[in-house]
């Protein structure tokens, strides 16, 4: 091993991203966020804080939302990742994406990919009966405004588009429940 690689050990990592399998050699320090943005050219997930504090980097890992800035890619070997680029079905936008457009749920759009992936996670978690801090004990969650605000609190929006984000998520949840 030469000095350079001794200081920066790397590993082979297999990831499935938006349905496409990849085999990558990555410096062990590489986060999932940097893997997506720097190695796979998927720049949808954004780097806001890089410390788990803003939610702009939210993606789904094996179906569950997570902050990709705090995940080491090497630890995810074999995982399936969905980013905002993978939410739409071909040309057909995801219902959450439609609702965000409909309700004008963004201004600059920087937080939006994270909001969308987080909201997709929220819908799945609520459907699985996962409680939040505002869910009454013994009841299954109903995605009203209070539940959505609590569940989406890990996604900050510097433009303050919160009211419309809540409406967009709520509309999607109701449409899903009606189907």
């Amino acid at each position: 091993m030469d000095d350079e690689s001794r200081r920066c050990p790397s590993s082979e990592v297999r990831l499935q991203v938006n349905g496409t399998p990849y085999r990558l050699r990555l410096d062990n320090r590489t986060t999932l966020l940097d893997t997506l943005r720097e190695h796979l050219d998927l720049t949808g997930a954004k780097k806001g804080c890089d410390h788990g504090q803003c939610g702009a980097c939210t993606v789904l890992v094996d179906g569950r939302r997570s902050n990709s800035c705090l995940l080491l890619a090497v630890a995810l070997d074999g995982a399936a990742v969905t980013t905002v680029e993978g939410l739409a079905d071909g040309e057909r936008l995801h219902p959450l994406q439609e609702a965000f457009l409909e309700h004008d749920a963004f201004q600059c759009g920087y937080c939006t990919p994270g909001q969308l992936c987080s909201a997709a996670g929220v819908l799945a978690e609520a459907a699985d009966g996962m409680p939040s801090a505002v869910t009454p004990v013994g009841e299954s969650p109903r995605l009203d405004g209070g539940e959505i605000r609590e569940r989406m609190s890990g996604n900050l929006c510097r433009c303050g588009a919160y009211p419309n984000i809540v409406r967009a998520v709520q509309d999607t949840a109701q449409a899903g429940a009606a189907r």
Partner: protein
Amino acid sequence: MKGFDYRRAGDPAGAVAAVAAAPGARYLAGGTNLVDLMKLGVEAPDLLVDVGRALDDRIEEGPDGSVRIGAAVRNSDLAAHPAVRRRRPALSQALLAGASGQLRNTATVGGNLLQRTRCPYFQDITKPCNRRDPGSGCPAVEGAHRDLAILGASDQCVATHPSDMAVALAALDAEAVVLGTAGQRTVPVAELHRLPGDHPERETVLEHGDLITDVLLPALPPGARSGYRKARDRASYAFALASVAAVLEVREGSVHRVALAFGAVAARPWRARTAEEALRGAPATAESFARAADAELAAARPLRDNGYKVPLTRNLTVRLLTDLAEGASR
């Protein structure tokens, strides 16, 4: 960030052997605290031993009502489990009051217990800090300590332990199962973290290489209710300024059994034994709850900017115990 080797442990014993043999090695679980601290330069391991798949991620309820929680269980899964959600709402509420949905999906029980203080100087390697760099000093005593300890601190360190979950576990008499090179032992969660004294760098009673494999919850008597209450700067997604977890059983208007723990006021979840003593057999009224909280908080030594934590902790205690006594489930 410094480069590091990465190894995925196949089982707990292999993980312990790998970390114990290498002074610069750290366990990696969810990584939500460790990776953050590596980015900040506070941690610079040369080997990460990933225990995410080596540790158990199941929750088992015993026939006697006790519960065994694998250390790799994610915070969100623990909060949703019926043995926790219905039987021990204090723990479910504490977990759900912490961090965000994304972080709770990633964070594990073991990592949550061993997360490090959020003291701003600890996290900033350009500043002195006795906990991070022994003997360098503690700027928090004179500086930004509004969020820091009022109980059990020393002039060497006034850090708090930031976990919500650990506060509920302390009130529930939980024990951590620890695997080390010398074998297995159990440590009560309320005694896992050390008070700073003259050695704030010794954060827990664990030795290098000790691995938390499980957390055990004893059975709760059928009449006992539990709850958690947290005060913070915003409605959600913020660390506690003060919090309280309690288990209460009232019989004929009197306190039959009580366990009380305070969060964000000390370097460990603060089991309020003095208050518990004062409450046993006392009438279950707001007056006794207030007297008991005052008795516990008589030991508080607030700093210039965190005196507010004394009445805040007291009022949270009275509110929570009153709600539990009245039978409110949350």
